[in-house]
Protein backbone atom coordinates (compact mmCIF):
# COMPACT_ATOMS: atom_id res chain seq x y z
CA UNK A 1 0.00 0.00 0.00
CA UNK A 2 2.81 2.40 0.99
CA UNK A 3 4.58 1.70 -2.31
CA UNK A 4 1.39 2.48 -4.24
CA UNK A 5 1.04 5.75 -2.32
CA UNK A 6 4.70 6.58 -3.08
CA UNK A 7 4.10 6.03 -6.79
CA UNK A 8 1.08 8.35 -6.75
CA UNK A 9 2.99 10.99 -4.75
CA UNK A 10 5.87 10.96 -7.29
CA UNK A 11 3.48 12.61 -9.74
CA UNK A 12 1.20 14.54 -7.36
CA UNK A 13 3.98 16.03 -5.18
CA UNK A 14 6.45 16.41 -8.03
CA UNK A 15 9.03 19.17 -7.46
CA UNK A 16 8.90 20.30 -11.07
CA UNK A 17 5.15 20.05 -11.63
CA UNK A 18 4.24 21.74 -8.34
CA UNK A 19 6.99 24.31 -7.82
CA UNK A 20 9.04 24.32 -11.04
CA UNK A 21 12.15 23.48 -9.00
CA UNK A 22 15.29 22.32 -10.81
CA UNK A 23 14.23 23.46 -14.26
CA UNK A 24 17.06 25.97 -14.74
CA UNK A 25 19.87 23.37 -14.42
CA UNK A 26 17.95 21.09 -16.80
CA UNK A 27 17.58 23.93 -19.31
CA UNK A 28 21.14 25.26 -19.24
CA UNK A 29 23.13 22.06 -18.71
CA UNK A 30 22.07 20.20 -21.83
CA UNK A 31 22.33 20.55 -25.56
CA UNK A 32 19.87 18.53 -27.65
CA UNK A 33 18.69 16.65 -24.57
CA UNK A 34 21.96 14.83 -24.05
CA UNK A 35 22.85 14.54 -20.38
CA UNK A 36 19.32 14.93 -18.99
CA UNK A 37 19.17 11.34 -17.77
CA UNK A 38 22.56 11.69 -16.05
CA UNK A 39 21.43 14.96 -14.49
CA UNK A 40 18.27 13.21 -13.21
CA UNK A 41 20.25 10.35 -11.67
CA UNK A 42 22.77 12.68 -9.98
CA UNK A 43 19.96 14.91 -8.67
CA UNK A 44 18.22 11.81 -7.30
CA UNK A 45 21.40 10.93 -5.39
CA UNK A 46 21.86 14.47 -4.05
CA UNK A 47 18.14 14.79 -3.09
CA UNK A 48 18.16 11.52 -1.12
CA UNK A 49 21.44 12.09 0.72
CA UNK A 50 20.90 15.79 1.41
CA UNK A 51 17.32 15.39 2.73
CA UNK A 52 18.37 12.49 4.97
CA UNK A 53 21.57 14.12 6.24
CA UNK A 54 19.74 17.37 7.02
CA UNK A 55 17.25 15.36 9.10
CA UNK A 56 20.22 13.80 10.95
CA UNK A 57 21.82 17.16 11.87
CA UNK A 58 18.47 18.83 12.57
CA UNK A 59 18.44 18.09 16.37
CA UNK A 60 21.79 19.91 16.68
CA UNK A 61 20.33 23.19 15.35
CA UNK A 62 18.32 25.44 17.74
CA UNK A 63 14.61 25.28 16.82
CA UNK A 64 14.27 29.01 16.10
CA UNK A 65 17.12 29.03 13.57
CA UNK A 66 16.38 25.80 11.70
CA UNK A 67 14.59 27.36 8.72
CA UNK A 68 17.38 29.89 8.24
CA UNK A 69 20.19 27.35 8.56
CA UNK A 70 18.81 24.54 6.39
CA UNK A 71 20.18 26.12 3.16
CA UNK A 72 23.64 26.26 4.80
CA UNK A 73 23.35 22.59 5.84
CA UNK A 74 22.33 21.70 2.29
CA UNK A 75 25.21 23.74 0.84
CA UNK A 76 27.78 21.98 3.05
CA UNK A 77 26.35 18.50 2.40
CA UNK A 78 26.10 19.04 -1.39
CA UNK A 79 29.55 20.67 -1.52
CA UNK A 80 31.19 17.76 0.31
CA UNK A 81 29.27 15.19 -1.80
CA UNK A 82 30.35 17.04 -4.94
CA UNK A 83 34.00 16.89 -3.82
CA UNK A 84 33.73 13.14 -3.08
CA UNK A 85 32.04 12.33 -6.41
CA UNK A 86 34.55 14.47 -8.31
CA UNK A 87 37.46 12.64 -6.66
CA UNK A 88 35.89 9.26 -7.53
CA UNK A 89 35.31 10.32 -11.16
CA UNK A 90 38.96 11.38 -11.56
CA UNK A 91 39.95 7.72 -11.81
CA UNK A 92 38.05 7.24 -15.07
CA UNK A 93 38.36 9.34 -18.21
CA UNK A 94 34.82 8.42 -19.27
CA UNK A 95 33.28 9.48 -15.95
CA UNK A 96 35.34 12.67 -15.94
CA UNK A 97 34.01 13.64 -19.34
CA UNK A 98 30.37 12.61 -19.05
CA UNK A 99 29.43 12.66 -15.36
CA UNK A 100 31.37 15.50 -13.70
CA UNK A 101 29.43 18.37 -15.39
CA UNK A 102 26.14 16.80 -14.28
CA UNK A 103 27.51 16.46 -10.73
CA UNK A 104 28.22 20.20 -10.64
CA UNK A 105 24.74 21.05 -11.92
CA UNK A 106 23.07 18.61 -9.51
CA UNK A 107 25.05 20.04 -6.57
CA UNK A 108 23.74 23.52 -7.38
CA UNK A 109 20.23 22.39 -8.33
CA UNK A 110 17.33 24.12 -6.64
CA UNK A 111 15.53 20.76 -6.76
CA UNK A 112 17.91 19.44 -4.08
CA UNK A 113 17.40 22.45 -1.79
CA UNK A 114 13.66 22.24 -2.49
CA UNK A 115 13.61 18.55 -1.47
CA UNK A 116 15.45 19.43 1.75
CA UNK A 117 13.12 22.34 2.65
CA UNK A 118 9.95 20.42 1.80
CA UNK A 119 11.10 17.31 3.66
CA UNK A 120 11.87 19.35 6.79
CA UNK A 121 8.37 20.82 6.59
CA UNK A 122 6.97 17.33 6.26
CA UNK A 123 8.84 15.24 8.83
CA UNK A 124 11.33 15.09 11.74
CA UNK A 125 11.90 11.38 11.19
CA UNK A 126 15.25 10.45 9.56
CA UNK A 127 14.13 7.37 7.53
CA UNK A 128 11.02 9.24 6.36
CA UNK A 129 13.22 12.18 5.27
CA UNK A 130 15.44 9.81 3.25
CA UNK A 131 12.31 8.30 1.69
CA UNK A 132 10.91 11.77 0.92
CA UNK A 133 14.18 12.86 -0.70
CA UNK A 134 14.28 9.66 -2.75
CA UNK A 135 10.68 10.21 -3.89
CA UNK A 136 11.47 13.81 -4.92
CA UNK A 137 14.54 12.57 -6.80
CA UNK A 138 12.56 9.89 -8.65
CA UNK A 139 9.96 12.53 -9.57
CA UNK A 140 12.73 14.75 -10.94
CA UNK A 141 14.20 11.82 -12.89
CA UNK A 142 10.77 11.10 -14.44
CA UNK A 143 10.52 14.74 -15.59
CA UNK A 144 14.08 14.59 -16.97
CA UNK A 145 13.11 11.54 -19.03
CA UNK A 146 10.00 13.34 -20.33
CA UNK A 147 12.11 16.35 -21.31
CA UNK A 148 14.75 14.09 -22.86
CA UNK A 149 12.12 12.57 -25.17
CA UNK A 150 11.02 16.00 -26.42
CA UNK A 151 14.41 17.73 -26.41
CA UNK A 152 15.69 16.65 -29.87
CA UNK A 153 12.68 18.30 -31.50
CA UNK A 154 12.75 21.34 -29.21
CA UNK A 155 16.41 22.02 -30.09
CA UNK A 156 16.00 21.24 -33.81
CA UNK A 157 15.66 23.70 -36.68
CA UNK A 158 12.00 22.69 -37.07
CA UNK A 159 11.25 24.90 -34.06
CA UNK A 160 10.86 28.65 -34.68
CA UNK A 161 14.10 30.41 -33.76
CA UNK A 162 12.37 32.51 -31.08
CA UNK A 163 11.50 29.46 -28.95
CA UNK A 164 14.26 27.07 -29.99
CA UNK A 165 16.46 25.58 -27.26
CA UNK A 166 15.99 26.22 -23.55
CA UNK A 167 12.94 28.44 -24.11
CA UNK A 168 11.14 25.59 -25.88
CA UNK A 169 12.24 23.17 -23.17
CA UNK A 170 10.90 25.44 -20.40
CA UNK A 171 7.65 26.07 -22.32
CA UNK A 172 7.19 22.31 -22.69
CA UNK A 173 7.88 21.84 -18.97
CA UNK A 174 5.31 24.56 -18.22
CA UNK A 175 2.69 22.80 -20.35
CA UNK A 176 3.46 19.45 -18.63
CA UNK A 177 3.14 21.14 -15.23
CA UNK A 178 -0.17 22.71 -16.25
CA UNK A 179 -1.47 19.33 -17.45
CA UNK A 180 -0.43 17.74 -14.14
CA UNK A 181 -2.19 20.55 -12.23
CA UNK A 182 -5.39 19.90 -14.21
CA UNK A 183 -5.20 16.12 -13.72
CA UNK A 184 -4.34 16.29 -9.99
CA UNK A 185 -5.81 19.58 -8.70
Amino acid at each position, binding site marked *: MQTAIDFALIIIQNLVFQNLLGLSPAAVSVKNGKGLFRLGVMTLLFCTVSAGMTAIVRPLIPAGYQKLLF*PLCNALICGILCLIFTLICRFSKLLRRFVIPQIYYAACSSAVLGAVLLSTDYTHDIPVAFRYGFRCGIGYLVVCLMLKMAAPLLYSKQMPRAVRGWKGLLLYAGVLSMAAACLFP
Partner: protein
Amino acid sequence: MNHTDNSVQRTILGSGLLIAPIAAFSASVMQALAMSFAFFCMTLLTVLPAALIPVKLPAALRILLYSVIGSLVYIPVGILTVHLFPQVSGGVFIPILSSALYLTALFQEVFPRKRLLKSLIRNLISVPAAAVLTGALRELFGSASFAGISLQFQPPLPMLLHPSGGLILLILLLTAISALRRREHLHADSD
Protein backbone atom coordinates in the same frame (compact mmCIF):
# COMPACT_ATOMS: atom_id res chain seq x y z
CA MET B 1 25.70 35.02 -33.42
CA ASN B 2 25.27 38.77 -33.48
CA HIS B 3 26.04 41.36 -30.83
CA THR B 4 22.40 41.62 -29.68
CA ASP B 5 22.13 37.91 -29.03
CA ASN B 6 25.36 37.99 -27.02
CA SER B 7 24.26 40.89 -24.84
CA VAL B 8 20.89 39.21 -24.13
CA GLN B 9 22.54 35.89 -23.31
CA ARG B 10 24.86 37.55 -20.81
CA THR B 11 21.90 38.39 -18.57
CA ILE B 12 20.48 35.95 -16.04
CA LEU B 13 17.11 35.72 -17.77
CA GLY B 14 18.64 35.67 -21.25
CA SER B 15 20.66 32.58 -20.39
CA GLY B 16 17.74 30.62 -18.96
CA LEU B 17 18.72 30.85 -15.30
CA LEU B 18 16.49 31.79 -12.35
CA ILE B 19 13.43 31.87 -14.61
CA ALA B 20 11.54 29.12 -12.81
CA PRO B 21 11.76 30.52 -9.23
CA ILE B 22 10.82 34.00 -10.46
CA ALA B 23 7.91 32.67 -12.51
CA ALA B 24 6.69 30.40 -9.74
CA PHE B 25 6.76 32.98 -6.96
CA SER B 26 5.78 36.23 -8.68
CA ALA B 27 2.01 35.66 -8.67
CA SER B 28 1.22 39.21 -7.50
CA VAL B 29 2.88 42.62 -7.37
CA MET B 30 3.69 42.29 -3.66
CA GLN B 31 5.21 38.83 -4.10
CA ALA B 32 7.23 40.12 -7.06
CA LEU B 33 8.48 43.05 -4.96
CA ALA B 34 9.50 40.70 -2.12
CA MET B 35 11.26 38.43 -4.60
CA SER B 36 12.98 41.41 -6.26
CA PHE B 37 14.18 42.75 -2.92
CA ALA B 38 15.59 39.35 -1.91
CA PHE B 39 17.19 38.91 -5.34
CA PHE B 40 18.76 42.39 -5.24
CA CYS B 41 20.35 41.89 -1.82
CA MET B 42 21.42 38.29 -2.39
CA THR B 43 22.97 39.00 -5.79
CA LEU B 44 24.88 42.00 -4.53
CA LEU B 45 26.15 40.23 -1.42
CA THR B 46 26.89 36.89 -3.15
CA VAL B 47 28.46 37.90 -6.44
CA LEU B 48 30.89 40.50 -5.06
CA PRO B 49 32.59 38.20 -2.48
CA ALA B 50 32.38 35.27 -4.93
CA ALA B 51 34.47 37.33 -7.37
CA LEU B 52 37.36 37.19 -4.88
CA ILE B 53 37.52 33.39 -5.04
CA PRO B 54 40.40 32.40 -7.38
CA VAL B 55 39.25 30.83 -10.66
CA LYS B 56 42.21 28.46 -10.48
CA LEU B 57 40.62 26.54 -7.59
CA PRO B 58 39.03 23.18 -8.57
CA ALA B 59 35.39 23.63 -9.61
CA ALA B 60 34.07 21.33 -6.87
CA LEU B 61 35.80 23.43 -4.21
CA ARG B 62 34.45 26.63 -5.78
CA ILE B 63 30.93 25.17 -5.68
CA LEU B 64 31.36 24.52 -1.96
CA LEU B 65 32.62 28.07 -1.32
CA TYR B 66 29.98 29.76 -3.50
CA SER B 67 27.18 27.77 -1.94
CA VAL B 68 28.37 28.53 1.60
CA ILE B 69 28.54 32.27 0.76
CA GLY B 70 25.05 32.12 -0.84
CA SER B 71 23.47 30.36 2.11
CA LEU B 72 25.19 32.64 4.67
CA VAL B 73 23.89 35.68 2.77
CA TYR B 74 20.39 34.18 2.82
CA ILE B 75 20.23 34.35 6.66
CA PRO B 76 20.10 38.20 7.06
CA VAL B 77 18.28 38.69 3.74
CA GLY B 78 15.62 36.11 4.70
CA ILE B 79 15.04 37.83 8.07
CA LEU B 80 14.88 41.28 6.44
CA THR B 81 12.47 40.12 3.71
CA VAL B 82 10.07 38.68 6.29
CA HIS B 83 10.19 41.97 8.27
CA LEU B 84 9.65 44.18 5.21
CA PHE B 85 6.99 42.02 3.55
CA PRO B 86 5.14 40.35 6.45
CA GLN B 87 2.03 39.72 4.31
CA VAL B 88 4.02 37.72 1.76
CA SER B 89 4.83 34.11 2.59
CA GLY B 90 8.14 33.32 0.88
CA GLY B 91 7.77 29.55 1.24
CA VAL B 92 10.67 27.70 -0.30
CA PHE B 93 11.26 30.24 -3.05
CA ILE B 94 13.33 32.90 -1.25
CA PRO B 95 15.94 30.34 -0.04
CA ILE B 96 15.83 28.73 -3.49
CA LEU B 97 17.14 32.03 -4.90
CA SER B 98 20.42 31.53 -3.02
CA SER B 99 20.85 28.09 -4.59
CA ALA B 100 20.01 29.37 -8.06
CA LEU B 101 22.46 32.24 -7.65
CA TYR B 102 25.56 30.19 -7.05
CA LEU B 103 24.70 28.15 -10.11
CA THR B 104 24.66 31.45 -11.98
CA ALA B 105 27.89 32.66 -10.48
CA LEU B 106 29.74 29.46 -11.22
CA PHE B 107 28.86 28.36 -14.70
CA GLN B 108 27.57 31.19 -16.78
CA GLU B 109 29.30 34.15 -18.27
CA VAL B 110 26.63 36.30 -16.69
CA PHE B 111 29.07 37.94 -14.29
CA PRO B 112 32.42 38.13 -16.14
CA ARG B 113 35.06 39.46 -13.78
CA LYS B 114 36.36 42.09 -16.21
CA ARG B 115 32.90 43.67 -16.57
CA LEU B 116 31.51 42.71 -13.18
CA LEU B 117 29.99 46.07 -12.24
CA LYS B 118 28.30 46.57 -15.62
CA SER B 119 26.81 43.07 -15.71
CA LEU B 120 25.78 43.35 -12.05
CA ILE B 121 23.85 46.58 -12.73
CA ARG B 122 22.25 45.12 -15.86
CA ASN B 123 21.03 42.04 -13.99
CA LEU B 124 19.97 43.96 -10.88
CA ILE B 125 17.64 46.02 -13.10
CA SER B 126 16.41 43.41 -15.59
CA VAL B 127 15.41 40.61 -13.20
CA PRO B 128 13.29 42.74 -10.80
CA ALA B 129 11.70 44.49 -13.81
CA ALA B 130 10.73 41.13 -15.35
CA ALA B 131 9.47 39.84 -11.98
CA VAL B 132 7.30 42.91 -11.31
CA LEU B 133 5.89 42.94 -14.86
CA THR B 134 5.05 39.22 -14.66
CA GLY B 135 3.57 39.64 -11.17
CA ALA B 136 1.41 42.59 -12.28
CA LEU B 137 0.08 40.75 -15.36
CA ARG B 138 -0.62 37.57 -13.42
CA GLU B 139 -2.42 39.43 -10.66
CA LEU B 140 -4.42 41.52 -13.15
CA PHE B 141 -5.54 38.69 -15.45
CA GLY B 142 -5.40 35.83 -12.94
CA SER B 143 -7.21 37.32 -9.96
CA ALA B 144 -8.64 40.61 -11.31
CA SER B 145 -6.78 42.78 -8.82
CA PHE B 146 -3.74 45.05 -8.71
CA ALA B 147 -1.41 45.39 -5.70
CA GLY B 148 -4.08 43.76 -3.54
CA ILE B 149 -6.92 46.07 -4.69
CA SER B 150 -9.83 44.22 -6.28
CA LEU B 151 -10.84 45.59 -9.70
CA GLN B 152 -14.36 44.09 -9.75
CA PHE B 153 -14.31 42.05 -12.94
CA GLN B 154 -14.24 38.35 -13.74
CA PRO B 155 -10.58 37.17 -14.00
CA PRO B 156 -10.15 36.02 -17.61
CA LEU B 157 -7.11 33.72 -17.06
CA PRO B 158 -7.15 32.21 -13.53
CA MET B 159 -4.61 29.55 -14.61
CA LEU B 160 -1.99 32.33 -14.68
CA LEU B 161 -1.86 32.10 -10.87
CA HIS B 162 -0.47 28.57 -11.11
CA PRO B 163 3.38 28.42 -11.33
CA SER B 164 3.18 26.89 -14.81
CA GLY B 165 1.03 29.82 -15.99
CA GLY B 166 3.69 32.21 -14.70
CA LEU B 167 6.45 30.26 -16.42
CA ILE B 168 4.67 30.26 -19.78
CA LEU B 169 3.89 33.98 -19.48
CA LEU B 170 7.50 34.88 -18.57
CA ILE B 171 8.94 32.79 -21.42
CA LEU B 172 6.53 34.40 -23.90
CA LEU B 173 7.52 37.88 -22.63
CA LEU B 174 11.23 37.04 -22.98
CA THR B 175 10.65 35.63 -26.46
CA ALA B 176 8.78 38.78 -27.52
CA ILE B 177 11.57 41.01 -26.14
CA SER B 178 14.34 39.07 -27.93
CA ALA B 179 12.33 39.02 -31.18
CA LEU B 180 11.85 42.81 -30.95
CA ARG B 181 15.55 43.36 -30.25
CA ARG B 182 16.53 41.11 -33.14
CA ARG B 183 14.19 43.01 -35.48
CA GLU B 184 15.60 46.36 -34.27
CA HIS B 185 19.10 45.10 -34.89
CA LEU B 186 18.21 43.89 -38.41
CA HIS B 187 16.64 47.28 -39.21
CA ALA B 188 19.76 49.06 -37.95
CA ASP B 189 21.95 46.80 -40.10
CA SER B 190 19.86 47.39 -43.24
CA ASP B 191 19.88 51.18 -42.67
